């Protein structure tokens, strides 16, 4: 055990504090600063001096007050009881604070240490174990069987495993002998800036189904993939991320509200207990972890919150689950880096951001992946990061660097948002590199025809884009009838497929099969309409037929095969 270093403050500048007489303190070590014991982290060491970024407001802090090193880097507590919680950026639970404000220097255990869990062993003493091996489990929630694993850095002979029964998280439930005896409880600590180890990375082949049509059908994300959602204000980033968190078919969801609005976290807290997971039917609160560093909270903790979130997601991945981590917004995290860098008087690169911005973004998104875990299971961490480009300018550093490392990109278009087309994902500029690897899944699980329909639909939308340029200059009257009909087909795709209401009970979540049905209905209607056009019907007549509106409104009504068949029959008879 390392000795605790004690020194004193010599300078305070915003949330950066300079401390002297701290020889032996390590880079990234956690420290307690001042009489109030504010939490901070060492960000620079110079001889006997160190610079500390404090995770709390520093008002009133004076030179001469104490600084104490805690001997370990910023780490999270990994144990049953994490799921269903709301934490601040340093994994301090927000739900058991008295009063309505967060006082400085607040400390609390991340999980309830007095709660008893029913532990069931799955391994017998006498076996050789290595890091990551499962020794037993507790039922953390109705949705999460929480496996207790040998910590990654421990291996040896398992000499003791506790019998089935009630234990607290800190009780010893196993012992490993390897030269010295290591006692194992349900709690593990892990430094947040270090990725948890895995056996190997695999190629992702399964989609993360989100129930959001434009995502799943056109620009999908694979389990273990990474995606970025850039968009200016009011383009619906947060609503889209909330939808993903609510409906994605991942086993665990970690939602990091990073420098965003307090009321948005309240909205999640209010809706998650009421929404049911589309697969299990249980409240999604039972698989969710929330981390809130709202915009009025200190900026340094914002930088940490992203790492706390991803480490929690990795821990559940190690149990063999698919985790989804959502970060809203990674721009605020980058701005926190910039602010701290500025206070350290580092030489800035673009727009004041530090030169290591790109490498930090890269190493964050690299923590996503579909992997074989140390225990030989398959698990994944998927990352969806919102990006808030200032002035809606997609050439700014955070957006451009993010684009280099993510494989799916959902660009939110202010013009779509202005006309209240939500989700405002632009179908011309967005892309996903997962389309190809996932197309087999769609043809095996949904329909062999799906890929063809998908291409047809995108084709119509691309053609519409070029026709619209003509229409903008010359008016729609100059177009021949078949091109006018194509515009109508594009309109049906926009209104009946791409638009999706987050607040309509049926529309908000569309299972893959229904996504196929809706595409099929619209495209078949278009085929029928083309034939009728040849027979002399005008586009105006097709547009004003009740069936046109009915197919568009199918997204509110078609829940399964029955409704699809009924409507399909009408379309065929059209």
């Amino acid at each position, binding site marked *: 055990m390392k000795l605790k270093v004690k020194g004193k403050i010599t300078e305070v500048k915003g949330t950066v504090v300079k401390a002297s007489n701290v020889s032996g303190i390590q880079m990234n070590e956690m420290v307690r600063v001042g009489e109030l014991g504010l939490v901070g982290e060492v960000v620079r060491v110079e001889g006997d001096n160190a610079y500390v970024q404090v995770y709390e407001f520093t008002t009133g*802090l004076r*030179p001469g007050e104490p600084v104490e090193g805690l001997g370990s880097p910023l780490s999270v507590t990994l144990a049953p009881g994490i799921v269903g919680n709301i934490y601040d950026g340093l994994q301090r639970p927000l739900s058991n604070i008295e*009063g309505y404000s967060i006082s400085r220097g607040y400390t609390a255990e991340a999980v309830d240490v007095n709660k008893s869990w029913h532990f069931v062993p799955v391994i017998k003493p006498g076996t050789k174990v290595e890091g990551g091996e499962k020794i037993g489990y507790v039922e953390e929630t109705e949705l999460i069987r929480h496996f207790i694993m040998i910590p990654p850095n421990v291996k040896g002979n398992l000499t003791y495993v506790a019998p089935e029964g009630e234990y607290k998280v800190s009780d010893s439930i196993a012992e490993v002998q390897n030269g010295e005896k290591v006692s194992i409880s349900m709690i593990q600590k892990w430094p947040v800036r270090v990725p948890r180890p895995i056996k190997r990375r695999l190629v992702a082949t399964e989609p993360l189904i989100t129930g959001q049509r434009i995502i799943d059908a056109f620009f999908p994300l694979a389990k273990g993939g990474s995606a970025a959602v850039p968009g200016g*204000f009011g383009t619906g980033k947060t609503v889209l991320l909330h939808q993903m968190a609510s409906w994605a078919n991942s086993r665990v969801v970690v939602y990091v509200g990073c420098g965003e609005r307090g009321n948005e976290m309240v909205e999640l807290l209010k809706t998650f207990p009421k929404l049911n997971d589309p697969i299990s039917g249980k409240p999604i609160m039972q698989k969710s972890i929330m981390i809130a560093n709202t*915009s009025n909270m200190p*900026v340094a903790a914002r930088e940490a919150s992203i790492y706390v979130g991803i480490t929690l997601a990795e821990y559940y991945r190690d149990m063999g689950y698919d985790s989804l981590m959502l970060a809203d917004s990674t721009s605020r995290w980058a701005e926190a880096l910039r602010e701290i860098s*500025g206070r350290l008087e580092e030489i800035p690169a673009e727009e004041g951001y530090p030169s290591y911005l790109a490498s930090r973004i890269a190493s964050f998104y690299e923590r996503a992946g579909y992997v074989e875990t140390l225990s030989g299971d398959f698990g994944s961490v998927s990352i969806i990061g919102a990006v808030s480009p200032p002035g809606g300018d997609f050439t700014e550093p955070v957006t451009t660097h993010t684009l280099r490392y993510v494989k799916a990109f959902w660009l939110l278009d202010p013009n779509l948002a202005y006309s209240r087309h939500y989700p405002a994902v632009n179908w011309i500029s967005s892309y996903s590199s997962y389309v190809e690897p996932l197309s087999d899944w769609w043809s095996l699980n949904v329909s062999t025809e799906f890929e063809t329909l998908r291409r047809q639909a995108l084709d119509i939308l691309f053609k519409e884009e070029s026709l619209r340029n003509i229409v903008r200059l010359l008016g729609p009257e100059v177009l021949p009838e078949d091109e006018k009909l194509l515009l109508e087909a594009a309109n049906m795709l926009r209104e009946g497929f791409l638009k999706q209401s987050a607040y309509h009970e049926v529309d908000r979540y569309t299972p893959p099969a229904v996504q196929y049905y809706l595409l099929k209905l619209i495209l078949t209607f278009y085929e029928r309409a083309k034939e009728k056009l040849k027979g002399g019907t005008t586009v105006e007549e097709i547009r004003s037929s009740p069936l046109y509106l009915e197919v568009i409104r199918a997204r509110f009504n078609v829940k399964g095969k029955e409704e699809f068949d009924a409507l399909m029959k009408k379309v065929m008879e059209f």
Partner: protein
Amino acid sequence: MSGSITFSSVQSIKGSLMVIRTNGKLGYEELVEIELENGEKRLGRSLQVSEDIAVVEVFEGTQGLSPRGVKVRFLGRPLELSVSNELLGRIFDGLGRPIDGMPEPVGVEELDINGKILNPYKREYPDEFIQTGVSVIDGMLSMVRGQKLPIFSGSGLPHDMLAAQIARQATIAKGEEFAVVFAAIGVPADTAMFFRKELEESGALKRSVLFLNLAEDPAVERIVTPRVALTAAEYLAFEEGFHVLAILTDMTNYGEALREISMMREEVPSRRGYPGYLYTDLATIFERSGRITGRKGSLTQLPILSMPADDITHPIPDLTAYITEGQIVLSKDLYHKGIYPPVNVLMSLSRLMKDGVGEGKTRADHKELSDQLYNSYSKAMDVRSLAEIVGEEGIPESSKKYLQFADAFESKFMKQDPYENRDIDTTLNLAWDVLSILPESEWTNISEKSKKVYLSVVQKRNI
């Protein structure tokens, strides 16, 4: 007054910053009192402290200060506001000192003007509709108690008129009235006088607190004014149980003051010279609104900011809109057409509207109507710009209805008198009226049920 009282000497002066010797006795963001030779006193606050020196911003400016002959006293506390319900009906300067000729109000508590960090877990989700009596706001940009909804405006536009109309007319379902906290941040004296007169004439002045930092007042003080005002507002809302409407005008002046200080401190600038922490700093102001579980009152913010050169991508409006729960954008084009309030609805948004309207709150058809108006008006704008190019003859017959709709929407639904107070029923019925210009086949957002229940009522009334 706690803390050590020490006298110190000034080392250098630069802009509104001063470097003083401290011997480590001054804490970060603590106050100092500067006494000039002629006895005049000014307030300052530390921005950076070290063992021997500190950098201090002087709120009243450094004019006439000299390193010699100046005494600096450490007050040993951050900037505080003395609060009680005696604040109501009073007028203060930008630092919270009375300027209405009456004595200092008796406070029950001294509060740090930076406020406390509200635990998001203890927030109550804002979902109670505020009727402002302004159709375009109530109908399409509904405000709720505890929301922060700024007005983005430009020079010469009637943002003050609109804010005053909201302050006068805003009522909550049960007819409770708002207490108004008004902060003038670097605005001309006549703007402050206008608000004061409006509040006085409507009888709201006795439930109002005014904090005035006028254009002629020192710029550094502007950094503090919104925080002082919000400290008063938070106290009235969460301790005294008032529903508070805080009007902060003009937040662009605030941002400029922040830039000025940042430049003087030689910090690395980010966009357009504004400091990299502009977002975080603005958030510590705008996030001070909302409702708290178990507390009676609420704090609603209506900040006003002018967009320099009408540019919505300018850092101040841009970052503001990332923090606030929507924005009301005013349009010069509409104002020139004689439309008041000239709201560019397509660029405007109220993020909290969805939970504040509908059955039991306003009316069951509210959400659908609002969606439909947005949808149709946005189509109408496309038709309008097409008609400008190809002429009205060049557009199809079916689209011409959209031109009529857009005109009616602007001149009947949006346009109203600054003293006209429309209730929500009137507003929604007007929406049906203008929507009826379009054929029903264009109503993609309207359900059969709403047509049956509400449309027939409106049609009957019109006969």
